[in-house]
């Protein structure tokens, strides 16, 4: 995973409450077997008119907001479906940082698996950032993970909280599975006393069924 330390980029203020992951990547794009190429379909239904003509009314298509990499959002960002296609699309589009007052649980966790830093600030702080981003063309923020700060060129500086472990995973770009496999012996020991058997007692119509493990 791509490590994250510090990022400076221009801000897209997406002024909508409860943006769900269906809006980030609509269902018709979930049939892909790849993790890449989702940037093109990010916010598809809002972003495109019929024939994939860019919708001029959607903020992502505004000339003013080209090249953005910090997504400023409202509360409960990423609610709904667990689809990781949403953070894949956000990262593929070029966003490295999200800033919002709150996130949905599954989406929040998915961001960290994809090198995206979801910063949580208070409603008031987010309101202030919205004001600034909407007022100043090319408004940029610097997000520094080691010092846990968000700052702009005009002296604004906010601290944010983040779980220490998640911070380390992002800073070092650690592989979750690799981390867990370091404790494989513990998993094996656990399995010696914990037996979640899936024995079949009556026939079912299934393929490729493995034998239930002998306890």
């Amino acid at each position: 995973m791509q490590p994250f330390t510090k990022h400076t980029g221009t801000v897209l203020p997406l002024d909508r409450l409860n943006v769900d992951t269906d809006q980030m990547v609509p269902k018709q794009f979930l049939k892909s077997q790849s993790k890449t190429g989702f940037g093109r379909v990010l916010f598809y239904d809002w972003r495109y008119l019929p024939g994939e003509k860019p919708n001029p009314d959607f903020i992502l298509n505004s000339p003013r907001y080209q090249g953005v990499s910090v997504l400023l959002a409202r509360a409960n960002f990423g609610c709904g479906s667990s689809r990781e296609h949403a953070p894949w699309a956000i990262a593929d589009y070029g966003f490295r940082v999200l800033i919002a007052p709150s996130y949905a649980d599954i989406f929040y966790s998915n961001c960290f698996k994809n090198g995206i830093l979801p910063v949580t600030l208070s409603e008031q702080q987010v309101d202030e950032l919205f004001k600034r981003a909407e007022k100043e063309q090319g408004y940029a923020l610097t997000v520094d993970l080691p010092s846990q700060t968000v700052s702009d060129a005009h002296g604004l500086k906010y601290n944010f909280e983040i779980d220490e472990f998640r911070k380390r995973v992002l800073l070092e770009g650690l592989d979750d599975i690799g981390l867990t496999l370091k404790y494989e012996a513990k998993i094996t020991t656990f399995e010696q006393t914990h037996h979640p058997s899936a024995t079949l007692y009556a026939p079912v119509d299934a393929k490729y069924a493995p034998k239930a493990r002998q306890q």
Partner: protein
Amino acid sequence: MMQIMNPKTMYRKIWDAHLVRQTPGEPSLIYVDRHLVHETTTPQAFTGLKEAGRKVRRPDLTFAVMDHAVPTKDRNLPIVDEIAAGQLQALARNCREFGITLFDMSSHNQGIIHVIGPELGITQPGQTIVCGDSHTSTHGAFGTLAFGIGTSEVEHVLATQCLSQYESKTMRIVVDGARANGVSAKDIILAIIRKIGIMGGTGHVVEYTGEAIRALSMEGRMTVCNMSIEGGARAGMVAPDDTTFAYLEGRPYVPRGKEFQAAVETWKLLPSDEGAEFDVTVTLDASKLSPQVTWGTNPGMVTGVNDRVPDPASYSDPDDQKAVTRALEYMGLKAGTPMVDIPLDRIFIGSCTNSRLSDLRAAARVVAGKHIAKNLKEALVVPGSMTIKAQAESEGLDRIFRDAGFEWRDSGCSMCIAMNPDIVPPGERAASTSNRNFEGRQGKDSRSHLVSPVMAAAAAIAGHFVDIREWNVDAVE
């Protein structure tokens, strides 16, 4: 009664029993008893696993089904959507390669993953269950800790049978009172979401308790737990009791005879101890509930069937005013319109929320001897599994629905997520027993109203919403 020292919640008991590793300052490593997989959120996980040269640690605890993008008719014909077909083939290939039990499109047990898990007894009390699908919360109805995960976590579970997890806060939702005939489990959970808000449960595991929850069938409890995620909670659970044990006995993966009795004894230890503390407690009186209908673009935008579409100006928060204005514009609704005056184009009875036999029986009683309204373009019944379909047919429910003008389909997620050809066209309005009324959920520019199966059935006959309580029919699911 003996005082219990350190009383624990059911969530805490299951958590503790699955703790592989805990270290201060790090997430805990939790063992996964059942990993459910489907075609849509897993191909990238299997690819990642193979690229890293890793294996599936416990194929015997992993169960796969094709549900999200499968067609619900003409299954003998090749799938027209080549990309969807490719994803189904990939799942079959991965299951064959790693020796994972697969219920494919030709299986008599195929169905929606959150329907067949319980139906086959794969789901059992006290387990941890995960799946790359947010409605995994459904399985919590059995007293399991069950929640949705992303594709990276799917890969993690495939490789390690564990998940890195932070402990959640706990919320107890007490639903007391007896619900009226015509008020269903769906109405209970919609009313809960309205009360706590769609982010009210964020960061929490919910336990539903109270006499109205106890009185629900397992199907009803699954409906309630299913929509926990729509209130922001990753998991929702109900303590197992005699209703749970009676449901499970005799199912294919459930132990028999003395082994079953022994299992029941351990399951009886699961309910939260007297005096266990919850971070939040919410109460609801089921006797005061009316059938619920959503009017907006998230499940919290819901009201009683005898109410009216709300006025944005009636909200105090300017952000809410904006959100409601936008929702009404999308939905093509005017503030002040009585809910019963909203005409419909399509009806969908199905999804992991409401597609089980008791749902279909109740809906069939509503439509028996009647016919769907002339203004409807389509009315679908999509059973939650092929087993349910067969059972319903043996009871003659298919004839009742067909005679009433409904289409009777094969099982799958269908019009809930509209990844297959079952789509609500732009601008059309559907009464749906599914779980999400997000913009575009059932098709681009589709307008969804979430309701219970009996409310959807009555709306099909009337062509608009009606209060099912006014019909003289046994509407208890």
